[in-house]
């Protein structure tokens, strides 16, 4: 069918007649000229032409033949330009991402070929889902092993029945704003990475597409709640998360995580919590910046700027990035940081719920058992009780009517 249509364009009677004439002419030439039919479609050897000169044509313009060369460039286009010959260099350069010009408003369209797309595809369909699945699986496995070996970390001295306020309403609101938004973003993000392999076989394409479309909108908008949570958490807790001398004791004793009955002193946050805090903040910041770059496509040069900064400290990274490269790097980086942070958060959720007795109520009701507080945050309890004598006592009086 296609062949017929194409040939129809060539096949008018007039053209056919011309073609017959050309064949006859070339046959006539072939008998006269041993160079054959080729010369029939070529200009005479001494003609001015932009076509590639044949070696014998070059020779024929030599003065020894007694013919003055009409073209001093030997058949080349003046100015040593490409003329109408093909240039392997030009095509190779195009493959490497040479930008031309376009007359449509979208200036990004002037990039003819972006070969980095191949790298992006390879990473997006291979290492990114593979290693994020391995990282998540390894995190779960480690937590299961930890739970089997260490069990639930109990309050060694038992429940005191008296509580002390650990996190006030604002602190808990900030935490849960960050936590819930992160989980929504994580689940919708996981859908994009693993939905095709895991969910489409179960849900079918239509149902999954609806879920993924909702996921996209949730991801785009809940991102702002996450960023607000990030700012709140930073402002409220940064003063409690600076490195202190006690942290080295905590590190030396392994945080008391590995051995029963060991409780290194800690202020409001121990070293492990500080690590989580800074990982969440830095990871969250990086996710927010790369996420904003994705939310406002082609608006930022985030990676070119970052690479320029890194080059100052000895790196050698490209700083000339096409807009599409910025987007590719943003998606890759966004995924890598997200899965790293998700692993951290899974461990955080474990220790805050099933991993440790008495820990969840700190973020639940805001009240913790006094004995729990003394074991895990001894210096903080002292600080609070010094500042407001009777802290921990008042809570028990409030709880009294229920007993």
């Amino acid at each position, binding site marked *: 069918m296609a062949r017929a*249509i194409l040939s129809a364009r060539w096949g008018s009677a007039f053209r056919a007649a011309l073609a017959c004439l050309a064949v006859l002419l070339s046959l006539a030439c072939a008998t006269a000229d041993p160079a054959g039919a080729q010369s029939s479609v070529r200009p005479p050897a001494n003609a001015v032409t932009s076509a590639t000169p044949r070696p014998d044509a070059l020779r024929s313009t030599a003065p020894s033949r007694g013919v003055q060369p009409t073209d001093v460039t030997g058949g080349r286009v003046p100015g040593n330009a490409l003329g109408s010959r093909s240039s392997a260099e030009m095509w190779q350069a195009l493959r490497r991402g040479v930008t031309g010009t376009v007359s449509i408003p979208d200036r990004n369209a002037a990039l003819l070929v972006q070969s980095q797309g191949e790298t992006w595809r390879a990473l997006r369909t291979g290492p990114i889902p593979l290693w994020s699945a391995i990282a998540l699986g390894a995190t779960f496995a480690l937590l299961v092993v930890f739970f089997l070996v260490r069990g639930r970390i109990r309050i060694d001295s038992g429940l005191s029945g008296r509580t002390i306020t650990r996190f006030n309403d604002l602190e808990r609101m900030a935490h849960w704003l960050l936590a819930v938004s992160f989980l929504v973003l994580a689940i919708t993000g996981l859908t994009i990475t693993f939905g095709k392999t895991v969910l489409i076989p179960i849900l079918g394409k239509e149902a999954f597409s609806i879920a993924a479309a909702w996921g996209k909108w949730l991801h785009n908008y809940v991102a702002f709640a996450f960023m607000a949570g990030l700012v709140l958490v930073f402002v409220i807790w940064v003063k409690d998360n600076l490195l202190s001398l006690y942290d080295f004791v905590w590190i030396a004793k392994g945080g008391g995580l590995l051995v029963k009955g060991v409780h290194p002193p800690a202020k409001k946050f121990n070293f492990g919590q500080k690590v989580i805090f800074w990982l969440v903040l830095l990871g969250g910041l990086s996710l927010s910046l790369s996420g904003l770059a994705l939310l406002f496509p082609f608006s930022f040069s985030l990676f070119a700027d970052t690479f320029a900064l890194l080059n100052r400290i000895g790196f050698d990274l490209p700083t000339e990035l096409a807009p599409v490269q910025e987007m590719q790097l943003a998606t890759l980086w966004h995924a890598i940081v997200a899965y790293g942070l998700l692993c951290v958060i899974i461990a955080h959720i474990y220790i805050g719920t099933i991993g440790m007795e008495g820990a969840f109520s700190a973020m639940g009701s805001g009240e913790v058992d006094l004995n729990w507080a003394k074991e895990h945050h001894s210096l903080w309890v002292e600080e609070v009780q010094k500042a407001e004598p009777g802290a921990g006592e008042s809570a028990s009086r409030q709880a009294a009517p229920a007993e």
Partner: protein
Amino acid sequence: MARMKFLCDAERCIECNACVTACKNENEVPWGINRRRVVTINDGEPGERSLSVACMHCSDPPCLAVCPVDVFYQTEEGVVLHSKDLCIGCGYCFYACPFGAPQFPQVGNFGSRGKMDKCTFCAGGPEENHSAAEFKKYGRNRLAEGKLPLCAEMCATKALLAGDGDVVSDIYRERVVQRGFGSGAWGWGRAYPGPQG
């Protein structure tokens, strides 16, 4: 079964943009979307070349590989099509495509992408042939009418060729022989030619 291909002869393209206009008109492409564009290299300098580029309907479509909702499919004729009903507008196909073929209308706030739109080789989409829904979402289905993409059909210099890859390459080979010099058969075959390419 024919393997449909586009080929743009850089020695013939004169950057008249008729293919771009024809495509927009024939398929009633939405505002801001260019399924086809003409890129000029070395504009105004000796050795200037222009190339008309759209979806090249690759043999190993990277868009198909990366789509998280699996909207792409390749017809028996090698035409890469997609379902706008399933597309969520994530933009991944655009990041993977070497030629920048996938296009996105801006809908809603920020840079929110609508459903992806790209060259269909004038072959419509998953809707019923010649239905109103098909035309609205994907444009004309000329292939089902036995016609080739309009961009190539009306190219004045016959720079842009479309059709059975065997026929297109024969025409191009004849041209190269006639001209006495070669030229890159641009965007032909696989999307990414690999280390040797």
